């Protein structure tokens, strides 16, 4: 690496050493991955989706295998924001010394605002990622992020209680994702992250019943990459905000492709579950991949396609 800064990108005014961000729900609060490698090599990571109240989440089975991917139906399991502040963030801060992305879920604008307010005083938090698109907490996958008005209300409520950058995480399970992104932008979002999982399903042929106890769940993995790339392309052209692109990213090449489509930073989700070293390996592979495709600084390619 001739140029040590060739991987840096700016995400809502905070510089990342590289664009790689383990996605919420695949990296816990980081400290367990810190047993495997120094997680400070990451750009940042998005911690486990946190809600006002503790949540056990959905019944088991929560996991189904698919060709080139998996379905999860965790359902926002988390110990609640106060427990997160009391026990998870202190453990996280012992091993991660960069600004972290705080992923927040909820069921009403007030609840989102409550959780963001509660976390806002944490210096370790660089950005909020507002998850309005979890397919696992409402019947049939209906989410706030399917509707422009509901999106605007949640984003507006959160915007009112924090000065930190607010990144809104969108669902791909919509007719027009650009329209939702514009609603988030109009309500004061600083960035957009996408895609959350595709709503998917598998059936167990032996039992002749859905594999997932909750019937449907969120489909992720390399299989969804072309859909994610398309959504990133559409959204990055529809709004004037930085985009965190994710969905099936598994290699340095995938990162470059996401950034060419319009992503400023790149989330890595399911890949962490198959291989706990996935993000480390991607970061290590990036310089050679940039060389291969004649790219000097990675920030130069954002939206280049």
């Amino acid at each position: 690496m001739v140029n040590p800064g060739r991987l840096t990108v700016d995400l809502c005014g905070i510089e990342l050493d590289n664009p790689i961000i383990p996605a919420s729900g695949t990296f816990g609060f980081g400290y367990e991955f810190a047993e495997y490698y120094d997680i400070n090599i990451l750009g940042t990571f998005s911690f486990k989706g946190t809600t006002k109240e503790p949540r056990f989440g959905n019944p088991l089975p929560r996991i189904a295998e698919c060709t080139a991917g998996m379905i999860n139906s965790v359902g926002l399991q988390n110990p609640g924001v106060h427990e997160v502040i009391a026990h998870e963030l202190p453990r996280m801060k012992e091993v991660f010394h960069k600004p972290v992305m705080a992923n927040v879920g909820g069921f009403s604008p007030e609840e989102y605002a409550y959780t963001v307010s509660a976390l806002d005083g944490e210096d370790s938090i660089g950005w909020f990622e507002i998850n309005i698109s979890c397919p696992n907490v409402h019947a049939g996958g209906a989410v706030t992020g399917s509707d422009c008005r509901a999106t605007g209300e949640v984003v507006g409520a959160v915007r009112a209680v924090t000065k930190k950058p607010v990144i809104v995480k969108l669902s791909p399970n919509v007719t027009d994702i650009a329209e939702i992104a514009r609603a988030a932008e109009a309500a004061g979002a600083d960035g957009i992250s996408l895609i959350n999982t595709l709503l998917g399903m598998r059936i167990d042929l032996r039992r002749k019943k859905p594999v997932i106890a909750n019937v449907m769940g969120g489909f992720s993995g390399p299989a969804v990459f072309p859909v994610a790339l398309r959504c990133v392309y559409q959204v990055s052209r529809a709004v004037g905000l930085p985009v965190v692109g994710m969905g099936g990213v598994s290699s340095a090449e995938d990162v470059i492709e996401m950034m060419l489509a319009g992503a400023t930073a790149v989330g890595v989700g399911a890949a962490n579950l198959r291989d706990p070293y996935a993000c480390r390996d991607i970061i290590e592979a990036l310089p050679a991949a940039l060389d291969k495709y004649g790219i000097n600084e990675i920030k130069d390619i954002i939206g280049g396609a």
Partner: protein
Amino acid sequence: MVKTVYTVAGNEKIARDVYRMELCGDTSMITAPGQFINIALEGKYLRRPISVHDASGDALTIIYKVVGGGTEDMSRMAKGTRLDVLSGLGNGFDTSVSGDTPLLLGGGLGAAPMYMLAKKLIAEGKRVSAVFGFASADDVFGTDELRSLGVDTAVATVDGTAGVRGFVTDGMPEEYTYAYSCGPEPMMKAVYKKIKTGGQFSFEARMGCGFGACLGCSCKTVTGCKRICRDGPVLTKEEILW
């Protein structure tokens, strides 16, 4: 948890749809019986979690059942095949609480981890007995091996074609100081209800990662929410909510 490479050193059928695979590689991360490894298979997105049958030095043995495409692929693996594996997963059994005469209860493939557990208990000077339950005589495995360690091993089969007719709980001795159980949940639940001693129970679940990241295999316990893959697979009788 350590990511490592194991090389297939042997792979043979030992019962109906059940295979024993010998693997070669570093096993130093296997610190207790009842832990498992998680194997990446070509063309399958999720790894396959398989409990450790035995491990020492550079040799590790697993016993697995062909239940779908992934395990079918495994059954065809030749000697020398290199496997991408996460090893040393899960808590494993705690032998320190077993008392002098622990009882091992294995149902079906749940008999697999009992061999390494028995070895450890015997090494600690305990007198071990076991009951293995299977559907039918064709499914029986691991009993001779256990007996060769000196374990008094009873067998129960549902159809009565081997050992006593019935379930594991129908073959249990009167006296024991502690119960270690692994098998289908209905079998473990029956054991849970029958034993008067303390016990440990090893659970199975569909896992996303196998190392505690995805919360795909969470379960509620007396002591809060636990991940089968990382906080388990072994739970104590006292913490199980049944």
